[in-house]
């Protein structure tokens, strides 16, 4: 910009042309710089993508191995349970079979109280099992109930009935 005689600013076409050249060259330089940066970023991006791919692959492999291991552990546990279950069931079946002895002997009890005591003894046996009593002890308990508790109780209850009648 130049200043005329009246003090007003007047534009100089030559100086403007030099200014634009500078500006253009600066813009060109910045474009080149940005392109360079873009190339760098593209290179970095491709590197990162490759790294992500590698990490995903590693993760997939580990997840697969992990699922295999957990499956193996579970199958081991199941196998153990499978070994235990039939035995426990067989024991329960035997116990129920033995409980038939109590049912048989309970014919000695007055009919109105028979069900009550059978249920009570069944509960006691269940408690014994839950307390971790060995199966043999449960069998002994059943035999004791059938051969000792039932006859004694029958005598007690029938004596009481006789007393009320008298």
């Amino acid at each position, binding site marked *: 910009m130049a200043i005329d005689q009246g003090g007003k600013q007047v534009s100089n076409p030559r100086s403007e042309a030099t200014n634009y050249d500078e500006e253009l060259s600066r813009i060109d330089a910045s474009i080149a710089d940005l392109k360079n940066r873009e190339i760098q970023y593209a290179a970095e991006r491709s590197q990162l993508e490759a790294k992500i791919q590698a990490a995903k692959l590693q993760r997939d492999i580990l997840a697969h191995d992990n699922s295999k291991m957990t499956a193996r552990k579970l199958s081991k546990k199941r196998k153990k349970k499978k070994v235990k279950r039939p035995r426990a069931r067989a024991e329960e079946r035997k116990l129920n079979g033995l409980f038939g002895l109590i049912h048989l002997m309970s014919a000695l009890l007055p009919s109105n109280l028979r069900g009550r005591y059978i249920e009570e003894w069944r509960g006691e046996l269940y408690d014994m099992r*839950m307390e971790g009593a060995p199966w043999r002890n449960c069998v002994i308990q059943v035999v*004791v109930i059938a051969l*000792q508790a039932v006859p004694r109780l029958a005598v*007690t209850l029938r004596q*009481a009935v006789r007393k*009320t009648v008298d």
Partner: protein
Amino acid sequence: MSYVPRLTEQTVAVLRAMLAAPTTPRWGRDIANETGLKSGTLHPILARLEQAGWVVSAWEDPAEHEDAGRPRRRYYQFAPGGAEAARCAIATVVAPTKSSPVGRLRPQLGH
């Protein structure tokens, strides 16, 4: 019907176990564990106490045993006045053995 039940050693043991917490309902196995009595002895005793009117029994609340997934229990508890009657009876049973001179009378040797 109420009468004074025969107070054997085992009956006294059962009553003592129940008197430890007179208002708490107890089930058969619980009492058996505390007294060391077998089922064959315990149930006739409980039946006698029930007939005497000292003890009452009732099935437990279905909600409790269904939640626990086990068979229901029969709970035994002192009837109103049962605990006092049991205490008096135990006192009369225990007292003579301590104070009675009968146990101390023995024939003297040489007479």
